[in-house]
């Protein structure tokens, strides 16, 4: 199912660029994302509290919990879309509270996010949408073209490259969102329910891609309710499973 040639070529390209960002990480110290006694509540009430966590470089995390327990909220705290109600969140060693809007924009170029509701620019083609992170950060489009093509092949969207997002199926949108999150070869990948709308085979394929990236040193966190996916991953990678339950973030036992 997975062509080894393609995989290698893809990896090489990603490594090429990730050298740069890896250096940046080293200069900044070894911390990527750090929670310190974090609590968050919306107007409705507190979702969780006393959450302390450090995402070490190269780690692989799953985040589970019932619907409405706060998985998406947790991820939003990770990429600065929310500021915690109390406690401290640090992204690349900077306290989110102290970061300017531009700082957050720059940090996001090193964090690939797959939103639960995948949104795109509906007037641009899929290809242009996938290249958007590059465009926005001022990269030359040309030199990333091979990378883009390969990524599209991986997520099975090559034939839809010129379609507009409203013409995509639900699963296609989800795969496109994952591809867009990966195109900048970010240090951290946060994916919110990235396989909710794809069939089992495709979800295995996407998982393999994420595991490959993790092997290359990327830090990965996936919020999902799909226990089958977690079980499948555990066969290939040392993944920690976090569970939000009873307003606490807990490490899930070996029962998964």
């Amino acid at each position, binding site marked *: 199912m997975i062509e080894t040639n393609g995989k290698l070529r893809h990896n090489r390209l990603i490594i090429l660029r990730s050298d740069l960002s890896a250096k940046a990480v080293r200069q900044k110290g070894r911390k990527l994302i750090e929670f310190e006694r974090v609590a968050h509540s919306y107007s409705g009430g507190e979702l969780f509290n006393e959450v302390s966590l450090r995402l070490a470089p190269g780690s692989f995390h799953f985040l589970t919990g019932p619907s409405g327990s706060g998985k998406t909220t947790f991820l*939003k705290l990770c990429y*600065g*879309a*929310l500021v915690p109600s109390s406690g401290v969140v640090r992204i690349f060693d900077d306290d989110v509270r102290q970061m300017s*809007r*531009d700082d*957050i*924009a*720059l*940090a*996001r*170029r090193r964090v690939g*996010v797959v*939103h639960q509701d995948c*949104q*795109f*620019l*509906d*007037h*641009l083609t899929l290809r*242009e949408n996938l290249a*958007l*992170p590059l*465009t*926005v*950060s001022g990269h030359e489009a040309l030199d990333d073209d091979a990378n883009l093509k390969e990524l599209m092949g991986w997520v099975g969207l090559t034939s839809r490259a010129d379609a507009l997002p409203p013409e995509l199926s639900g699963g296609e949108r989800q795969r496109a969102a994952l591809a*867009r999150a990966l195109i*900048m070869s970010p240090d951290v990948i946060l994916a919110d329910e990235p396989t909710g709308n794809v069939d089992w085979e495709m979800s295995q394929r996407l998982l393999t891609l994420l595991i490959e990236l993790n092997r290359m040193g990327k830090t990965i966190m996936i919020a999902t309710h799909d226990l089958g996916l977690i079980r499948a991953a555990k066969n290939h990678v040392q993944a920690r499973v976090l569970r939000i339950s009873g307003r606490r973030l807990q490490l899930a036992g070996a029962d998964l």
Partner: protein
Amino acid sequence: MSVLRSVIDFAIGDAQAEKAVPPTGFTVRLTVFSAAAMAFLVVFALALSLAAGRLADRWSDELARSATVRISAPAAQMAAQTEAALNVLRTTEGVESARALSLEEQRALLAPWFGPELPLDALQLPQMIEVIETASGFDGDGLRLRLAGEVPGAVLDNHARWRGPLVSAASSLRLLGWVSIVLIALATGAMITLAANAALAANAQVIAVMRLVGARDSYIAQAFMRRFTLRALAGAAGGTLFGAFALLLLPSASEEGGFLTGLGLQGAHWFLLILIPILAAVVAFLATRLAAHNTLRSLT
């Protein structure tokens, strides 16, 4: 220099950034259209103001500020009374100059009534004194009283006064024109601000996606600002051209021909029109900037 540089950079723009804003939006068309319509109206209001201004100047200069004093007296006292009246007039506030008319001038004045062959010598004609008022004018009743006291044979006739209302009419017309221009400019600014806000609200998803993939505020704002500024510039330029063309179709403005018949612009005033699109672009730039930064601040 660096201002010019950044204006040029802005106009050239970042093609990539602008692509992020959906190409056809009704809000953009709305901006083009309102800029054009407003520019068109401004051209007319401007022409009206300038023509009314010219009119007011001419009338007040040439006509409104003259009056006559007529002295009827026995021949022997005529010279003395004339001199006395001129003295009174010279010391009256609001009188710029006073001058006794010569016989020839009086004959010319009377020609419409008696023909040029009037036997003036046979007549005991009154002496006429032409009075030129200052801009503020004199107090007619006060002057009449003083003349009655000092020059028994003098009669003040400030008949030309009837043009006063005309002059003030022309002035208020000019004021109306300028008020309209200011109003239209304000309305245009407000409309472009609202259109920009509407565009940003309609493109909330675009902005959210851009933020998500790491675009800076200035990058996003720039795309919108450029779009709206250039569209306002284009719309206003079109409207101004159209308005100027319409003005050319009106009977032309000439110094001699009539008072208000020519509503057109004269000479250097045509260059004022160039300011209209430039001002529209500046208004659009500032309005969009404000709207964009307000919208962006509400997003994470």
